[in-house]
């Protein structure tokens, strides 16, 4: 088990009129090789939970153990925790600061105290992982790039630290559909190639359904669902009650089934739907 979260509560500004319980008794285990989608509304506690995973925030009560290190204990090396759990924040391009793309991506690995050769190798690898050309871009200023490319540089900066768990908070926010698909594809490739554990925070069901194999749903600081992707989307009415939809194609297939057509109703992507409908039509023709 990579990350073990036990009875975690977190309260913002306790003892003031702004007091807010952001996490309410969260229990959760994250295992190696998981590809998790963390879904919830704005203010449901997603970002707060995610910051607990690498020790940026510490629980008001309860414990978070990352690869054997309890983040709440005194004297633990939080740097080590942050190397194990790489966190890409929302709009990560706002954190770029160096003169060149190379230097910016090298910031993380350098902080880990790695040798120059190792840093160089990691920067190259990370840029390749996110689809940036090393030779033509390494000496350019990150501020000259387009929004989508800036974001890639920022994500590469975290990947270059070789984390065991990569957490991405809304990595596609504010991107056009093309940019969104590209980033999601790169994340998928990263998962398949490097085998690292990935947690994808999102409120877009469509994005998440295509990629992940496990879904966590948060609502008002509580973890309300934690299951395999298909199982979660079977509970469509519950999801709708907390204001989260299921992918459009899933809704379509459910409706289609309700009309008395014999098809599966746990479809997640358009591709799957196509196959299922073809099968259905063939069955109908044969009958």
């Amino acid at each position: 088990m990579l990350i073990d979260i036990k009875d975690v509560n977190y309260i913002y500004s306790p003892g003031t009129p702004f007091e807010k319980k952001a996490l309410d008794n969260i229990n959760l285990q994250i295992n190696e090789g998981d590809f998790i989608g963390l879904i919830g509304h704005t203010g449901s506690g997603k970002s707060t939970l995610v910051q607990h995973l690498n020790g940026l925030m510490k629980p008001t009560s309860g414990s978070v153990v990352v690869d054997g290190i309890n983040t709440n204990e005194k004297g633990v090396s939080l740097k080590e925790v942050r190397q194990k759990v790489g966190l890409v924040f929302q709009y990560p391009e706002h954190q770029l600061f160096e003169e060149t793309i190379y230097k910016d991506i090298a910031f993380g690995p350098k902080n880990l105290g790695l040798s120059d050769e190792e840093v160089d190798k990691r920067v190259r690898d990370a840029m390749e992982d996110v689809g940036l050309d090393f030779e033509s871009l390494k000496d350019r200023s990150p501020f000259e790039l387009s929004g989508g490319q800036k974001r890639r540089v920022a994500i590469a900066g975290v990947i270059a630290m070789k984390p065991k768990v990569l957490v991405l908070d809304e990595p596609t926010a504010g991107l056009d559909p093309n940019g969104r698909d590209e980033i999601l594809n790169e994340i998928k490739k990263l998962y398949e190639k490097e085998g690292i554990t990935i947690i994808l925070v999102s409120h877009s069901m469509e994005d998440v359904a295509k990629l992940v194999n496990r879904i966590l749903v948060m609502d008002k600081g509580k973890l309300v669902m934690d299951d395999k992707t298909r199982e979660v989307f079977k509970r469509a009415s519950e999801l709708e009650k907390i204001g989260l939809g299921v992918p459009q194609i899933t809704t379509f297939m459910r409706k289609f089934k309700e009309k008395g057509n014999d098809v599966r109703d746990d479809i997640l992507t358009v591709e799957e739907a196509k196959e299922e409908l073809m099968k259905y039509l063939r069955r109908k023709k044969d009958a």
Partner: protein
Amino acid sequence: MLKDITIGQYFPGDSIIHKLDPRVKILIIALFITSLFFINSFYPYIFILLFISMVVKVASLPVKVILKGLKPLIFIILITFAINIFMTKGEVLFNIGPLTVTKEGLSTAVFMALRLIFLIVGTSLLTLTTSPIALTDGIEKLLSPFKKVGLPAHELAMMMTIALRFIPTLLEETDKIMKAQMARGADFESGNILNRAKNLVPLLVPLFINAFRRADELATAMEARCYRGGDHRTRLNDLKLDRKDIVIFTSMLVFFGLIISTRYM
């Protein structure tokens, strides 16, 4: 740690002090500050303390919040205290190495430290009980007579509104960037002064870039809504003095007048 900064922070409430006309509050605080500098003995401090505790009680402000506001300034208070205690000549009480502590020094040091503390607490009472918008409205109204001599009262007030409005935003952003860089192994808390200053580069560069970007966007957004400065601008809630404002202001005028007069008694 950034959350400790309470200067300019508003603590919402529904008390009579919250509802007082901002102009009255600003003038009362001005009186408060003036009288602090007139006080030259310890006993009028009792009345100052009484005034502060009354405001705190009526506005039901938690004492913790007020003490927290003192925290970032504790250094200045300590330096003032140290300078006064060691630099004043007079009847020697005791020595610490080459430094001598005199009776007069001790009393001036305590006196000055108290003055500073009251100054900070008093002024923070204003911002804690007045929303930034009300505050700048009050300042604009108070400054408007000086428009005749070319003082851009509206522009000054607008600048203040924007500045106050962006304090929490910038703090939040600083916090966010700090965390993002910490997630990449940056260290803001250890090392000597030189290293610490160097370590701030990854924080300050993005912060400045974002602040400029934000300023640009805000200017465009204001222009898109036809903002053209203060001339002929009307407002939704015009400030009006009512009886309670006048009564409170008069009684405060008398109160602080008496405190000031203690100097000449």
